[in-house]
């Protein structure tokens, strides 16, 4: 099949660049066969995977090799798309935004450089997966806990750089970043925070450094290639206490958010719970065809039958308190009292104490079973995530829930949503699960996505993260003062990356050289 080359690069120069890359990393780590290109595509995409096809991939093993690759890319004007482990599933996986971009695959950089038990942090490279770090901590009996996303196949660094989250008190993963090592688009290497001192004693302890703070400028960004990340880890608590409840009615999510938000804000509840509709549980257990084979979205009465068979409510809530037994008990009492104002139901209570199996603790334990949902429709399953951020109040949550569910039903896709509750906002992840072989369905899903972005923008909601195909759409919704933020982002981009070689189009930030590619 024909190779899609980077824009404005001749076949001859492309080949020369690949040869130069091979001179740095070795021939075997320059991946440029048809099969290689295919392995970097977003296979879950709803029929538009070929809009994001890379031309090749290159796999360095060290920051020095990254520097050398970036310099060669500047020489030949080859755009690079850095990935950590490439498991950004539902958001584009390993694929680049602009077709023809070369994937800079950091998966071979897998060193866990330091784990500090006393101060609760690690310093790791981008190729370290959640499973790798978990195994490292468990094998050495280091009493530090990770924050792990629902599907934990990916990279710890990559997930934090995309603002992923887990469900422990350290669940906002990007907030745990403390100190980065970054290769800039020029090839120069820089360390952020106090790491900018060559003998820093506090690189992973003090986030801010001196003067402007840069860590977050490299998050969801195309300003540099992160080659090391300091990340705070949570000390293992003495005990945890779990509170579970099934909420029978669709509108129950409203009062549940209103009851929990003040408790999040005051610190009674320190983790971010996910209130998810129970279809997501059912979808990991059974195929849809077992329940319904008709047209359109799953009818409400069929859903009721399924839920009652499994003894599930419309929504499930799973809260967890971390710390000392007595404190957990006291906090549980406060949470129970807040819920008693709305329901006669009682929480199902579970307890864990240090030394008992970690799987029962509420610690971040990596698993990939969440991926099961994509088998729901049958055929070659695919999924796409629409994830707006809303104020954590019933007024916003109920309105957004009903409007999204209605949109799903209009195109015959089953509603699958969750609200993850932080102190002030809630992230509303909506999954669209489809059969990639059903072209009519995938085309409806693609249209739906644009409608949902527009609906959310009208309400003043942005997305916390989005799929490659919608990066420009979401960026457009940040329109204050005629898109002043985009002008700022692109001014910085052009200053740091005059040749525009690093991740053109990432988060809608286009360098001058490729600005014409904006959707």
């Amino acid at each position, binding site marked *: *099949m*024909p*190779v*899609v080359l980077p824009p404005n690069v001749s076949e001859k120069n492309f080949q020369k660049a690949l040869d130069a890359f091979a001179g740095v990393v070795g021939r*075997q*780590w320059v*991946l440029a066969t*048809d*099969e*290689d290109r*295919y*392995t*970097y*595509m977003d*296979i*879950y995409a709803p029929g538009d*995977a*070929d*809009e994001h*096809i890379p031309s090749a*991939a290159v*796999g360095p093993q060290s920051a020095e090799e990254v520097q050398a690759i970036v310099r060669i890319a500047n020489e030949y004007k080859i755009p690079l798309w850095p990935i950590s*482990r*490439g498991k950004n*599933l539902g958001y584009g*996986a*390993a694929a680049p935004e*602009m*077709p*023809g971009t070369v994937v800079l*695959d950091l*998966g*071979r950089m897998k060193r866990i450089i330091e784990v500090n038990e006393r101060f609760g942090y690690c310093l790791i490279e981008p190729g370290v997966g959640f*499973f790798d770090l978990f195994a490292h901590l468990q094998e050495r009996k280091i009493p530090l806990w990770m924050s792990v996303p629902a599907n934990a*196949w990916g990279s710890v660094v990559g997930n934090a750089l995309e603002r992923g989250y887990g469900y422990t008190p350290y669940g906002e993963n990007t907030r745990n970043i403390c100190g980065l090592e970054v290769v800039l688009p020029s090839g120069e290497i820089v360390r952020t925070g106090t790491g900018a001192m060559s003998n820093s004693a506090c690189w992973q302890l003090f986030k801010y450094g001196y003067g402007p703070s840069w860590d977050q400028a490299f998050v969801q960004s195309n300003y540099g290639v992160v080659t090391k990340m300091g990340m705070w880890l949570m000390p293992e608590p003495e005990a945890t206490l779990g509170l579970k409840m099934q909420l029978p009615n669709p509108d129950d999510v409203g009062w549940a958010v209103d009851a929990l938000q003040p408790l999040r804000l005051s610190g009674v509840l320190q983790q971010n719970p996910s209130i998810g509709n129970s279809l997501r549980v059912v979808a990991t257990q059974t*195929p849809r065809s077992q329940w319904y084979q008709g047209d359109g979205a799953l009818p409400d009465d069929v859903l009721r039958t399924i839920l009652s068979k499994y003894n599930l409510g419309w929504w499930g809530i799973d809260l967890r308190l971390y710390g000392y037994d007595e404190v957990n008990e006291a906090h549980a009492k406060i949470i129970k009292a807040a819920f008693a104002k709305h329901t006669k139901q009682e929480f199902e209570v579970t307890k864990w104490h240090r030394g008992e199996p970690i*799987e029962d603790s509420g610690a971040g334990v990596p698993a*990939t*079973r*969440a*991926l*099961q949902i*994509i*088998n729901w429709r049958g*055929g*070659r*399953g695919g999924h796409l995530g629409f994830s707006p951020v809303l104020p954590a109040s019933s007024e916003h949550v109920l309105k957004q829930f009903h409007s999204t569910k209605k949109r799903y039903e209009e195109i015959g896709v089953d509603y699958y949503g969750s609200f993850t509750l932080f102190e002030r906002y809630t992230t509303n992840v909506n999954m669209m699960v489809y059969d990639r072989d059903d072209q009519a369905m995938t085309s409806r899903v693609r249209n739906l996505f644009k409608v949902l972005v527009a609906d959310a923008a009208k309400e003043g909601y942005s997305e916390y993260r989005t799929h490659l195909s919608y990066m420009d759409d979401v960026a457009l919704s940040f329109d204050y003062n005629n898109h002043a933020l985009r002008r700022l982002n692109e001014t910085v981009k052009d200053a740091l990356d005059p040749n525009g070689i690093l991740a053109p189009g990432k988060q809608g930030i286009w360098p001058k050289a490729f600005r*014409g*590619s904006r*959707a």
Partner: protein
Amino acid sequence: MRTKPRFRSLAPFMLFALTTSAAIGVGVAHPRHPRPRREDDSAQKFNEGEKLFRARCGYCHLAGGTGTIMLGRRLGKDHALLDQRTDLTAAYVKTITRVGLNSMPPHTRIEVPDTELDLIAAFIARPASAHTPPASPPSTRATHE
């Protein structure tokens, strides 16, 4: 405006994946008088392959994993655990790893280099006689769920 890339279809790959038969049995006869040295070599190779299988494929393909659940649903419980299958050829394992199947995504040569994939495929496709007897308890596997 973005120009549509010339590349069009992945169909040739998928066809290749689907027509590569998984049903070819592993009727590789053991030599009647194997040289002990060679047997040691294969045992060592299968051992390495098993370790790599756990490390690279174990995310989904050990007991309780998402791949195991999906295979069990599609082909029955007897066919759910890849490392206990006796009907898979090395070529099939390698092809599916690279192109994916149904909901399983493809794996790059950086995630699973060719040298590792050769060992993993040889382990999965090892002769029935090299399989651990089914009575052996799966004690080292992930047992939750």
